[in-house]
């Protein structure tokens, strides 16, 4: 695991990816600080972070798109498979290297609130609480990015999917207001999601019957629940969309609440997507 970690790190710092990422993040934070803290003379550093969080839509895919996809393209995944390494360790090594790349600019950023505190009243607990949540949210998105990268050998494709997924997640709360909250609307949406899941299963496992089975079973379950008690679906879709949003949970910190459930949610997302990435890498051996 340490070998993979070191290798990835030297890769990021060799290929400028790490510098581009840091520069981008620092530039965004600088811009935010100028807009909020200096121009509008607000002392709340957390507003800057909330402004910067939209930048994840681009920054995360930039660093994660190649993580696994590039190995596949260059056929170096075969080397990883033949080395005496556990797949879990490969993914963890890669993930931890990404965390370091992400943490480096954050360490610099963590001085900002302290600097601002020199010039006025800054409520540091909220600033640092938000910074921590910002780190956790980014860490969760990195895990999502690794998983997306593990699905394909086309880095452009990986970046495209990652951008759409993060963007969708970013706007999911706004979208939630527009989606139908009637039970029929929710039920139809869930049937659609079941179909999409079926496609994903088919893409990952290349197993037609399993995929159709999953899709049909889920659709039947939706239909069954709908037939039995349609009130269960009342407002369910917008509810779930709001709950799934990584960004929405982050805004709580910005508003000064240290929300432990959000941290647990981020950790769950990290573990879940790293687990999926391991499965996806492992799957390749079973093609």
């Amino acid at each position, binding site marked *: 695991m340490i070998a993979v970690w070191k290798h990835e790190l030297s890769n990021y710092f060799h290929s400028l990816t790490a510098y581009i990422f840091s520069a981008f993040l620092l530039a965004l934070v600088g811009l935010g600080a100028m807009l909020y803290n200096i121009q509008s003379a607000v002392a709340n550093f957390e507003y800057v972070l909330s402004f910067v969080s939209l930048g994840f839509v681009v920054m995360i895919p930039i660093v994660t798109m190649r993580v696994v996809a590039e190995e596949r393209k260059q*056929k170096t995944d075969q080397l990883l*498979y*033949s080395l005496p390494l556990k797949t879990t360790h490969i993914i963890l090594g890669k993930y931890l290297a990404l965390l370091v790349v992400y943490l480096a600019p954050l360490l610099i950023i963590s001085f900002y609130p302290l600097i601002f505190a020199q010039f006025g009243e800054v409520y540091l607990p909220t600033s640092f609480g938000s910074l921590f949540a910002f780190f956790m949210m980014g860490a969760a998105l990195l895990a999502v990015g690794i998983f997306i990268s593990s699905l394909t050998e086309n880095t452009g494709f990986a970046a495209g999917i990652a951008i759409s997924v993060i963007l969708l997640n970013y706007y999911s709360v706004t979208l939630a207001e527009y989606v139908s909250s009637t039970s029929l609307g929710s039920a139809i949406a869930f049937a659609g999601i079941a179909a999409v899941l079926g496609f994903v299963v088919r893409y990952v496992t290349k197993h037609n019957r399993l995929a159709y089975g999953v899709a049909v079973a889920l659709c039947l379950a939706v239909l069954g629940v709908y037939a039995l008690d349609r009130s269960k679906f009342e407002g369910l879709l917008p509810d779930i969309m709001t709950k799934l949003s990584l960004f929405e949970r982050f805004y709580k910190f910005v508003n000064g609440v240290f929300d432990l459930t959000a941290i647990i949610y981020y950790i769950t997302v990290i573990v879940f997507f790293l687990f999926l990435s391991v499965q996806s890498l492992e799957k390749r051996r079973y*093609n």
Partner: protein
Amino acid sequence: MIRVEHLTKYYGDVMALNDLSFEIDEGHVYGFLGANGAGKSTTMNIMTGCLSATDGKVSIDGYDIFEKPEKAKKLMGYLPELPPLYMNETPAEYLRFVGEAKGLKGAELKRQVEEVMEQTNIGGIKNRLISALSKGYRQRVGIAQALLGNPKVIILDEPTVGLDPIQIIEIRDLIGQLGENHTVILSSHILSEVQAICEKVLIIAQGKLVAFDTPRNLEKLMLSSNQVSFTAEASVDEASEIMERMEFAEEYQVEKREDDAVNIFVKTDSANVRDICRQIFFAFADQGNAIIEMEAKKANLEDVFIELTEGSGVEE
């Protein structure tokens, strides 16, 4: 050392390996021979843990590759068909990573990296980017990678493909040296190569093992196909008449040429080809027909290969 038992592999509906079993002993150079698509790479990928099998078992020194993958993989170095290299790294960086991943550290890591670079003769280019290296040097870096960690078994998938003749000879020499204290398994479709460097040959066709023996024994298998071909100044009728009188000639063919001569091919199962050549020579000389060219051809591995692989093709 290595045991492969009833290995079967399907890619979707395509069967690549069909109940393949063999056993490999320590300290020899083994050649893995087969036509394109015979299943050589598939077998090697499964043996090295890069691919799952649909059915069957592989064990290395008693460690099952599916159950104890880390232990088993430590005993093997593998060069896949396409050398798995990071193009944006130098050989030195690349080898350091592979060495670390194989569990080497500190001074030992340094020593082994130096050693394999010397063995594969890549010291001179160790600080150039791999993307800037020629195919031959990339192949060497790939082999160097397989040698790290001093594994007992070295598995090379078509190590000389795409190299120029001088590089081929150098790589073959290297494989010969490795064979002195490692078990080496290499795949190839070049028969002369396998004949030259391998002590034992496995031939597979359509995912099945069709032969497993020394190159010499495999040739003996084919003794019946000893051939003599010659050119004589004679008409077709004259030549046929002389040939009819020779009882050793089981099967022969007379072919007219542009000039006043004929080409004749004789197949015999007699082991003494030289004696046969003499008999033919005098028979034609007695009739006043000059033999202007004569060649005795012994069966070689190529014939064995073609016969065995074609044989199983008919079966399908």
